[in-house]
């Protein structure tokens, strides 16, 4: 049978597989727009292990980590690096307990303790790490260890 004539179950299956893959990809986080569609700020059941959400970038000297964590009392932040593993924990503050549960029209935000660990791509110098909490986003600057920095090798001509 010529490939374009009639019904080919294998082609249909292949088509379905691709559709499903695309669906999952869309839900993924690395596609533009993918991350924005997720409910991004909710610690708790749904986001267990994935809170806070992180953006990571680097340049020659540092690794930069941004953690999306609004409403955290800065005192509760605990950021540590050990053996190339970064751990961020803290507590998102709940609203006052004095509020009568019946007085709520909407409760979409959630609160509570969170911890997330992450393997860093390269070794970092744990001496000079910096952390800043601005407008609900935690910014970390982790200097790369000397051994992890790119080095130029002089080519000698003999």
């Amino acid at each position, binding site marked *: 049978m010529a490939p374009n004539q009639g019904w080919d179950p294998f082609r249909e299956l292949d088509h379905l597989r691709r559709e499903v893959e695309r669906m999952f990809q869309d839900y993924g*986080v*690395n596609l*533009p*727009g993918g*991350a*924005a569609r*997720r*409910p*991004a*700020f*909710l610690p708790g059941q749904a986001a267990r292990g*994935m809170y806070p*959400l*992180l*953006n*990571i*970038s*680097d*340049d020659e000297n*540092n*690794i*930069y980590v941004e953690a*999306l*964590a*609004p*409403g*955290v*009392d*800065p005192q509760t932040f605990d950021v540590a690096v050990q053996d190339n593993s970064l751990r961020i924990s803290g507590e998102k503050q709940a*609203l006052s307990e004095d*509020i009568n549960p019946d*007085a*709520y*029209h*909407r*409760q*979409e*935000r959630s609160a509570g303790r969170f911890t997330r660990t992450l393997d860093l*791509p390269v070794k970092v110098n744990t001496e000079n790490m910096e952390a800043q*909490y601005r*407008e*609900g*986003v935690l910014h970390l600057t982790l200097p790369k260890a000397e051994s992890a920095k790119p080095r130029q090798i002089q080519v000698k001509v003999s």
Partner: protein
Amino acid sequence: MTEHTVQTTTGEQSVPETRAEEQTLRPPVDIFEMTDGLVVVADLPGVPKDQIDINVHEGVLTIHGKVKQETVGTPLRNEFELRNFYRQFRLTDEVDSENIRAEMKYGVLTVTLPKAEKAKPKRIEVKTSS
């Protein structure tokens, strides 16, 4: 006082058309009632204090926050994308718009909307005629 979210399709009428293509995030909120008004708490991470626009117009509360993006270096992993925040609520009771208070702390916005004097329940004194 009650409120309900203004549907996005009809709700964006107050945003000028030139910005219609702007894709915004809908911030999660807690809304609760106090004796003299309504309190709206919204997560707006990445929005500086002076980039928040809050207004009540014809019974619709609009919250619009502009995000300050500051990306350094080459991205290795992107789990979130900050976008401007936008959300509207229709309020059923009249609000004392002179006395709306807003506070921003650690990326969380708290708006207190006191009820207008005429929307408050009035106590009626019962007189006895004896």
